[in-house]
């Protein structure tokens, strides 16, 4: 009898997520927006919701996010994505509505909109990328810029006396009863990235289950505007941002455990 000998074969264990378009991103080398995009894309693929999703792009570096996802998308006015998403979700309650926003968009001009969307418990999911500066416009101070951090509009380092303190949005929003899932994760190393992926997946399941407002804050780097090489920027994030923005779960309603 012919004895078949098992031959080792190379299996693909990791490849580009399906719901990303072929577009090359415009992000700077080492910018972790790209990682956040991939995690969101993987989560959309895994839940099989590509054709049910409407993505709301912000104004900021990720304004072109609609070019990178093969989903229905629209571009909100600066800071207004949560309001736009509210309009979309109220009309399309059975679709998945996701906002993707940076810290300038969400914490600064859009602070009112995100707060009220959360308080209303809008059934939407927000991916909040926090890199502590305004990236697109060239690295100005943002409400998340750390005390003493130099930016193009806080050249001497952010001073508390004139500009007050950075805002911890996850902690702030987690006090609102309309929220179901508010967590902060980081993208500064592979282990943290894997945890961030789980959080994004959970946040989308929270929306599917209609448990309330969900947001995943992702601590991110901005090598170009921080003026730090990409790998060193990850270290800078770990050393400087993590202490002020602790990674953790700030609001997780009990029903999330069953998802």
């Amino acid at each position, binding site marked *: 009898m012919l004895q*078949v000998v098992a031959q080792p074969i190379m299996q693909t264990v990791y490849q580009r997520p399906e719901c990303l378009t072929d577009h090359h991103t415009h992000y700077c080398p080492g910018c972790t927006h790209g*990682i956040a995009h991939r995690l969101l894309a993987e989560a959309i693929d895994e839940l099989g919701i590509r054709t049910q999703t409407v993505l709301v792009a912000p104004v900021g570096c990720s304004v072109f996010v609609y070019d990178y996802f093969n989903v229905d998308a629209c571009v909100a006015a600066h800071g207004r994505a949560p309001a736009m998403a509210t309009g979309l979700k109220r009309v399309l309650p059975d679709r998945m509505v996701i906002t993707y926003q940076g810290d300038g968009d969400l914490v600064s001009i859009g602070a009112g909109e995100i707060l009220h969307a959360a308080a209303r418990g809008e059934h939407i999911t927000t991916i909040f990328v926090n890199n502590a500066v305004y990236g697109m416009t060239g690295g100005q101070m943002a409400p998340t810029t750390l005390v003493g951090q130099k930016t193009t509009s806080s050249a001497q380092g952010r001073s508390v006396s004139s500009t007050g303190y950075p805002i911890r949005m996850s902690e702030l929003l987690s006090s609102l009863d309309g929220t179901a899932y508010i967590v902060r994760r980081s993208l500064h190393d592979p282990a943290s990235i894997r945890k961030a992926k789980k959080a994004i997946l959970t946040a989308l399941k929270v929306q599917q289950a209609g448990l309330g407002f969900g947001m995943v804050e992702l601590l991110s780097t901005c090598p170009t505007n921080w003026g730090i090489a*990409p790998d060193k920027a990850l270290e800078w994030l770990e050393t400087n941002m993590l202490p002020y923005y602790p990674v953790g779960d700030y609001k997780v309603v009990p029903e999330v455990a069953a998802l």
Partner: protein
Amino acid sequence: MTRGMISIDAERCKGCQLCSTVCPQQVIHMASDCLNAKGYHPAALIDPEQLCTGCAICAVICPDICITVYRETVPKQAHNGTQEAVR
């Protein structure tokens, strides 16, 4: 040790060096001898001793999703002798 391999979309790569930094086997290096159309030195797998295990850590951290990861799997010898690939 399972053997692995990666392929890098050199045209998509922006030479940010995150993959080469985190690779446990240190088998990813920047191709200093060539540039891609964007003008970056793309990352490349240089693994003569086949140290790559297909752990995919490089792909996890790549911001431009340039890396496809393969891992060698020895199919379990099925009782009827047919090849059945197992993950």
